[in-house]
């Protein structure tokens, strides 16, 4: 057909890009919450991991808004870049999560499948966000800010308790960061596409 959405420059509109990004971030967060809960129920009961999983996310060096006011005060370009940085910071750990999680004793398929799906969809969302930032503020695409993940050795520790804690902590941080990304994108979509009137 002629241009599918009628725009002369034949592009996917910014509104559609945001719709798809939000649907994807919502989906990734729901998977992240499910994989965390499933792992917690199966491997973490009574081990007190929650007390140790404090101040331990590799993305904590990225200063992100922690409430509605902060999120609304930050300029949308900065918030978009923050989302990009958090997403980029997860590329490497998600890749290793997929390979390392298979080594956990009697790991159920549902955890395996979710790890694979989250890794694939996170990459897809990153591609989408790069397209959105490219539209909103092209100059920004150059600088690739992200947090390096030092956690691979911990996922391969011989001591089972320590190794399980490393997985627990990674999934705890994944649930947290995927929720941040989902929340910020929904806010940005309402602000940029619906003039804060969703």
């Amino acid at each position, binding site marked *: 057909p002629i241009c599918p959405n009628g725009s002369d420059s034949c592009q996917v509109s910014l509104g559609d890009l945001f719709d798809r990004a939000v649907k994807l971030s919502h989906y990734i967060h729901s998977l992240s919450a499910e994989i965390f809960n499933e792992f917690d129920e199966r491997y973490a009961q009574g081990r007190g991991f929650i007390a140790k999983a404090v101040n331990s996310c590799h993305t904590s060096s990225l200063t992100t808004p922690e409430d509605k006011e902060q999120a609304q005060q930050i300029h949308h370009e900065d918030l978009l870049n923050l989302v990009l940085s958090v997403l980029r910071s997860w590329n490497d750990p998600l890749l290793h999560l997929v390979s390392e999680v298979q080594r956990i004793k009697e790991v159920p398929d549902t955890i395996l499948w979710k790890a694979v799906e989250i890794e694939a969809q996170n990459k897809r969302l990153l591609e989408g966000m790069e397209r959105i930032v490219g539209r909103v503020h092209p100059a920004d695409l150059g600088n690739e800010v992200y947090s390096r993940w030092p956690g691979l050795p911990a996922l391969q520790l011989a001591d089972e308790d320590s190794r399980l804690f490393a997985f627990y902590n990674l999934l705890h941080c994944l649930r947290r960061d995927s929720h941040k990304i989902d929340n910020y994108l929904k806010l940005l979509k309402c*602000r940029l596409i619906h003039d804060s009137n969703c």
Partner: protein
Amino acid sequence: RYIQLRSGQPPGKPEILRCRSPEKETFTCWWKPGSDGGLPTNYTLLYNKEGERRYYECPDYTTAGPNSCYFDKKHTSLWITYNFTVKAINEMGSTVSDPYYVDVANIVQPDPPENLSLQFEKKVYGEYLLLNWDPPSLGDVKSGWLTLEYELHIKPEEGQEWEKIFVGQRTTYKMFSVNPGERYIAQVRCRSDHGSWSEWSPQSFIKLQK
């Protein structure tokens, strides 16, 4: 002269029951006192925030009623872990609860949806029951900070089981398979981003003509 024998015991161990945020902007925690040892006993809620060593005390013991602590916007941060303990103190001693860890992002339970209405519609493409409702007034849906998903319960009045229908983020629903002359009951609830479901809204009714 009298020897005053002090009677009473140190307080029993209090227990933090749960915390809830209705709109991801404020939150409240509740605890259950242990035994008071037969003496007047006071309770103090202390907490520290992830990344900080410093301890804080509950900012507001009253707004949310007895044995509770209310955190207004100024005291509420998301995506960080709060570590709470409650200390019970009386003349004979004190006892501290087990620690209770909370990330406000994971304790969101909205208020129920409001203004659920049912009306019967006849259109060329079919007859159906049209259900409409509003998000809870407490919570900022407009800005996108709070995104809600809804679930409906519908059944004929004498029906035993509710028919449960997940409708995603929409606030209207058309129910096609309706039985003329029947009286229907409906209620709706909501949740935010995989948090817990709200309570059900009050029930709404409609009596369909024959």
